[in-house]
């Protein structure tokens, strides 16, 4: 071998060494230097995470009775992609209809009446064509599981699965407070999940087909009620085939937190019933006699909507909040039909979906006089109040109300000049009349409130507007102090702030909607209207109730609480709600006394027709549609209101609180509003009187939940246990069930759950009791069938 060959061989050797060195170097780089970065990719390759929904937290009433629970139901849905693949809509329309017909037949056969048209409209209403999943039946017989499971080929796209859905055991009771749930939409999914780091295993993330609270407490406490989904982590290969479960990385779902409300379901139901009854009374009531035979007929009192709210004035707890008309949130379970949803939002049907207690906006009428009176008795931004020697005379100086109020000539000229300057219009009225020209002699502030004189307050308002030594916005400022013009802080979703009208507000509102307001300048009449709760003044029932609560508790503006306590699924208390003070009104005893007496007088001041307390009849006279209320035991202070609405019958108001005792704080403040009904004293005040009377002096009956009603039903007729076997059971159990179904209804029932009365009563019906819905309550007596 010559030198040249050796040289070449060496060259080859060098090449080999460098190549191998390059391999080792690269290996080192990958496994040492780049290792961390690429290893995370390896983890992602390897693990597949399946999220399993957690059970949603319960909503309980003040005594711990479940108002909203969950149950597992069997859901039939259609996978549109699969349906479209096997039976395309256009090409195989007949086969598709035929399949849906068979599906409808099976669903009906299992006990859930379903028409083919229902299925078709469900598919169409989804707005999806060949993607996604449409639920066509919820809560079907679990036996269908096996049936459809074995017949996948006969029912292309039909899926059957188990799902947890909401149950509202008390039906429509407190529906507006509880709210309803619906399927999460893509926007909500995105924004909700954006709050979480999706890699955090404790993140309360949402799944595509999760339901989410849309209104009420369900929405308000969505973040608490929604549980932490479980994570099943699997190691998979590149074809997503599961190799094994990684138990150490998997986590069980954590149920959502439970919310205990301040609402008491018994009182809630009671208030709802009284509200409905009050509206019925208003509908059936004779119209007010016309003053003048030539007057046009007043608008018909439709009395189809209203609200009643009961608060604890010392804590701000909402004990009951009723809105009429109402709805059953169970209708939303498993998806509500478009027709049904539209009906709930139909304005002609008074929008049952609306929670009028927070979303209704009404002129407060005379109930607002408390605010005007307070404003007139306090100095406000000046050194002296309007009702003083420097103003229009002290609040104890008696004045006559001749049925109208006329502005003194000198000030009238001022008003006319101002109006002319603004508008060019020559004449502006300087006389404001009471709606019914009612006359009231010798009024001080107390009696003016009790008999609800308008003229008394017209004067105060006109002076604020025209006298240069007073701030023209004094009444509005007082209103804002009491919490008007902003949401109460209850946290309930969709609450409206109402309106405290000022010149500034009018100008802005006019700029936005000129047609609705007609003018952009403020006139004296606006302040005059405002003082008696008319005009542009708008409040929500909760707001008004809360303002009276503020007066009742001595001046603390509290944000109403709807929730009392938040607990984890294991019972651990996570949060409790104490009274939340968000403002205060300085109510000195000199002011509080006359005002309180005025409110007490509205309920208790006797007198001739037209010159007694406006709510006197409601709390004294059964003949006049009221009740003989034990005011000695439970003195009530209150105020009626009759708010005029253009083209409609008046809104009837009553707000009151009690007991008014020196040694005892007030326990309840209640407001009642009846839309398109009539006089507050005649129609709204009795509702409050009835509601409080039963609440205080007659034990109101416990409301039975649907479960308890079912238990009662089962105890009464044990035969109901043995229902006709469905065709799905028949194939399995025919031989055994044929004999049992012929059993005569047994008269013997389990003795442990039945209390047979020892004394014979007129009622021969057995008195049955079933366990209470919460552990700290006595057993529930079954209502008579």
């Amino acid at each position: 071998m010559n030198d040249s060959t050796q040289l070449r061989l060496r060259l080859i050797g060098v090449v080999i060494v460098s190549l191998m060195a390059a391999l080792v170097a690269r290996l080192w780089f990958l496994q040492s230097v780049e290792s961390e970065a690429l290893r995370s990719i390896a983890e992602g390759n390897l693990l597949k995470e399946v999220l399993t929904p957690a059970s949603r937290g319960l909503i309980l009433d003040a005594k711990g009775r479940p108002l909203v629970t969950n149950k597992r139901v069997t859901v039939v849905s259609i996978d549109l992609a699969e349906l479209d693949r096997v039976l395309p809509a256009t090409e195989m329309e007949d086969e598709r209809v035929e399949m849906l017909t068979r599906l409808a037949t099976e669903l009906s056969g299992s006990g859930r009446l379903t028409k083919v048209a229902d299925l078709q409209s469900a598919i169409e209403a989804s707005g999806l064509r060949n993607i996604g999943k449409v639920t066509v039946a919820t809560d079907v017989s679990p036996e269908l599981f096996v049936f459809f499971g074995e017949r996948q080929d006969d029912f292309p796209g039909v899926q059957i699965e188990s799902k947890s859905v909401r149950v509202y055991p008390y039906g429509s009771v407190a529906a507006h407070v509880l709210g309803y749930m619906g399927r999460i939409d893509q926007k909500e999914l995105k924004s909700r999940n954006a709050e979480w780091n999706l890699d955090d295993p404790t993140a309360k993330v949402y799944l595509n087909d999760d339901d989410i609270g849309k209104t009420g407490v369900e929405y308000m406490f969505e973040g608490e009620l929604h549980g932490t989904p479980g994570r099943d982590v699997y190691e998979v290969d590149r074809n997503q085939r599961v190799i094994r479960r990684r138990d150490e990385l998997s986590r069980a779902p954590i149920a959502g937190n439970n919310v205990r409300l301040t609402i008491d379901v018994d009182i809630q139901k009671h208030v709802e019933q009284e509200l409905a009854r009050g509206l019925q009374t208003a509908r059936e009531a004779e119209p007010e006699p016309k003053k003048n035979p030539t007057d046009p007929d007043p608008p018909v009192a439709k009395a189809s909507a209203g609200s009643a709210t009961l608060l604890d004035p010392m804590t701000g707890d909402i004990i009951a909040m009723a809105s009429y008309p109402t709805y059953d949130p169970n209708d939303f379970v498993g998806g509500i039909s478009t027709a049904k949803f539209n009906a709930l939002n139909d304005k002609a049907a008074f929008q049952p979906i609306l929670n009028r207690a927070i979303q209704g906006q009404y002129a407060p009428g005379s109930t607002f006089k408390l605010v005007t009176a307070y404003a007139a008795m306090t100095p406000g931004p000046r050194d002296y109040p309007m009702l003083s020697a420097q103003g229009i005379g002290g609040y104890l100086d008696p004045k006559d109300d001749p049925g109208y109020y006329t502005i003194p000539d000198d000030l009238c000229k001022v008003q006319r000049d101002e109006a002319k300057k603004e508008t060019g219009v020559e004449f502006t009225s300087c006389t404001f009349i009471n709606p019914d020209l009612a006359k009231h002699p010798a009024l001080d502030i107390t009696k003016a409130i009790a008999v609800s004189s308008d003229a008394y307050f017209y004067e105060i308002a006109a002076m604020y507007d025209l006298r240069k030594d007073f701030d023209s916005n004094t009444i509005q400022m007082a209103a804002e102090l009491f919490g008007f013009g902003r949401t109460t802080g209850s946290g309930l979703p969709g609450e409206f702030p109402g309106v405290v009208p000022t010149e500034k507000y009018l100008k802005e509102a006019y700029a936005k909607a000129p047609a609705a307001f007609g003018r952009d300048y403020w006139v004296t009449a606006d302040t005059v209207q405002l003082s008696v709760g008319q005009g542009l003044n708008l409040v929500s029932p909760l707001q008004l109730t809360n303002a009276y609560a503020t007066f009742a508790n001595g001046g603390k503006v509290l944000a109403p609480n709807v929730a009392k306590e938040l607990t984890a699924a294991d019972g651990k208390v996570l949060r409790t709600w104490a009274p939340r003070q968000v403002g205060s009104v300085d109510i000195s005893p000199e002011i509080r006394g006359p005002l309180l007496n005025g409110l007490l007088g509205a309920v208790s001041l006797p007198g001739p027709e037209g010159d007694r307390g406006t709510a006197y009849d409601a709390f004294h006279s059964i003949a006049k549609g009221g009740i003989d209320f034990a005011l000695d035991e439970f003195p009530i202070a209150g105020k009626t209101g009759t708010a005029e609405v253009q083209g409609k019958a008046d809104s009837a108001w009553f707000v009151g609180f009690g007991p008014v005792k020196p040694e005892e704080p007030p326990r309840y403040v209640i407001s009642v509003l009846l839309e398109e009904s009539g006089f507050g004293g005649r129609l709204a005040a009795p509702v409050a009187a009835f509601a409080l009377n039963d609440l205080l002096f007659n034990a109101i009956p416990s409301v039975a939940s649907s479960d308890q009603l079912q238990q009662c039903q089962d105890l009464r007729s044990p035969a109901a246990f043995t229902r006709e076997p469905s065709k799905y059971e028949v194939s399995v159990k025919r031989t055994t069930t044929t004999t049992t179904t012929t059993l005569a209804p047994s008269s013997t029932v389990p003795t442990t759950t039945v209390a047979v009365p020892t004394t014979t009563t007129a009622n021969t019906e057995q008195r049955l009791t079933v366990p209470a819905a919460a552990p700290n309550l006595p057993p529930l007596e079954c209502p008579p069938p």
Partner: protein
Amino acid sequence: MTASVLSRVPRLRGQDGLWRYIDPSLIIASGAITALGTLMIFSATRNNPTLPATYFVERQGAAIAIGLVVMGLVAVFDYRKLRELAPLGFLGLVALLGGVLVVGQEINETRAWFQFGSIQLQPAEFAKPVIIVVLAAFFTGDRATEGQPPTVRRLLAALVLVAVPIGLIMRQPDLGTALVFGVIATAVVIMAGARPRHLLALALMLTFATTAVLTSDTLDTYQRDRLTVFINPDKASARVSYNLKQAQVAISNGGIPGQGLFHGSQTRGRFVPEQQTDFIFSVVGEELGFIGGSMLIGLFCLLFLRMWRIASVARDPFGALIVVGVLAMLVFQVFQSIGMTMGIMPITGIPLPFVSYGGSSLITTYASIGLVLSVHMRRFS
């Protein structure tokens, strides 16, 4: 000690004393790499959802047995007699490579296999040692020109000799194996003493040809992608860069100590495609880590060192060229196969010698080792 063990090996007629000159380290290194490779194949295939866990290992075991026998037979056979058989070998090679294009089994759009029952044979693999012998014989046959650099005419003739099997293999198409042929030819030409300027001209021609191939339509898009993906990973098609990325992820996942035998999660999840064949080094890298991976490369280096030594002590240029050819073949395959899984070489399907699953490749590799042994054993005769 070694001598006493080896002396018990039965002596073949006329081969007295030959076994004394056998190179045990060559066999030990090959054996060690093979054992490691079999373990890796088992790890890579035991999770196969459709086949029994030991299916691949059993088949590989059979191939190893055959390979060892073939190695022994080739080693015993006097390599010098191969010179006469070279023309016949070349004709057979052309016939087989041509035949496979006609009656061959097509797998993954490549027609490279003869199917016999459940056994598939890849003639291009067997053609590798044949072309080595053919080229070695071609450059050393003439006593008159012994010691002289090969003439241009001879070089061009050699080029044609190589071009024929390369062309046939490209028709399958199997770019990787074709490249191996090119590398073998280059190494043999260099060692045959070609003049530097001829080598330069050859290099220029190769560069020109490569550029032409890459820019023309000769290669399918996927082949071009595979060749260029390591230069520009972002531009590659998703499937190609997936292979590359997964392989590197697996190797990185090993780290220095490795995830442990049978504990490689990427391997278990079979994220790397072809992980028992061309990408087998990703399994080594993940489960045995840098320690195991560099040990494997070290074993290959030991093998190469011995072969390099054998080439320098060969008794005639024919033998030296054979050894260099085999050496070049194995070095290129090792570098290409491992380099590909680590992203420093283009993706072309080349098995890692002794390690990758595949009977044809394994038997061919052992036969080549047999050739080297044959040269070594006869270095004094």
